């Protein structure tokens, strides 16, 4: 009788601790970055833009100090960038040279549990606009 009571107690204790373990929250990071770019309809300006979304399961952690950076790589190989507090950023530059332009982005935030986090978006080559005027001026071979 005493043995069976002890066994029952042990079983209850095991089940209780298992339930507690499964109820524990594990932080799950889920941070996404979107980057892209487009030329203006007249082809005189290129725009790069980036956005960040944080869908992390935070548990007892806390995320703050979000920053988003948009970067343009210009036709001559130089870069312009703009960092904004928050989850979106954009940057622009005049199209003063033939060649390919690229847009890319990056995000940063502070996690109270794990410190500073950063993530980069993809590097995107910016397509020419559909306007015939722009194609004639910058892509004469397409007209």
């Amino acid at each position, binding site marked *: 009788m005493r043995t069976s009571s002890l066994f029952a107690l042990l079983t209850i204790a095991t089940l209780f601790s298992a339930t507690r373990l499964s109820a524990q929250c*594990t932080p*799950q*990071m*889920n*941070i*996404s*970055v*979107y*980057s*892209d770019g*487009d030329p*203006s*309809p007249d082809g005189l*300006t*290129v*725009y790069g*833009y*980036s*956005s960040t*979304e*944080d*869908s*992390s399961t*935070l548990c*007892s*952690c*806390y*995320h703050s*100090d979000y*920053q988003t950076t948009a*970067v343009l790589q210009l036709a001559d190989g130089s*870069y312009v960038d703009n*960092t904004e507090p*928050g*989850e*979106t950023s*954009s940057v*622009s530059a005049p199209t003063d040279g033939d060649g390919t332009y690229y847009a*890319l982005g*990056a*995000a*940063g*935030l*502070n996690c109270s*549990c*794990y*410190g*500073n*986090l*950063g*993530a*980069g*978006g*993809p*590097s*995107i080559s910016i*397509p020419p*606009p*559909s*306007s015939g005027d722009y194609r004639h001026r910058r892509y004469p071979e397409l007209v």
Partner: protein
Amino acid sequence: MRTQTIINVQIRFCVAVILSVGSLCAQHVHVMSAPGAAPGGLPVVVDGSKNPEKIPDTLAYQHFFAAFAAHPTPTAQEQGRQNAQLGPLQLAAADRATLVRTLAAFRVQLDQIASAVLVAGTPVALAGLQTQKSTLVVTTLASLRQALTSDGASRLDQYVQTRVKAHIVIYGGAM
């Protein structure tokens, strides 16, 4: 201020790596590396350029709305950026006006949520604001689908499915 500087340095590091290596980058400080990730790196969970079907629709629209929205009275920079962004969608004038109007309303509400995030103070409050933002995306998408013509809704969806999803990278994993 110091935190901002540190994050800025990290972003610049990240951008520098992207630019020099031409690859994706995630820098993660004070965190154990996940298996398969570069030392100190947050692993890529989904690369939209390779697996766009694994990017959830709601997330893709969330990015689209946030990146394309301009304020009801936009600055010249905002206006120029949005004009450039909307060109490839090739919407009819009425649909374009509807989208711009809806995005402006979205921007106003998103700004309010963003302001609340700054002073949230607790993980519970922050999680509540995340939920609020997700709800905003769902209701904005629903109202857009009702307000756009079927052609406009189809063009928008095609753009989000093919172009936006391909330009999203999701990082993460259990910590």
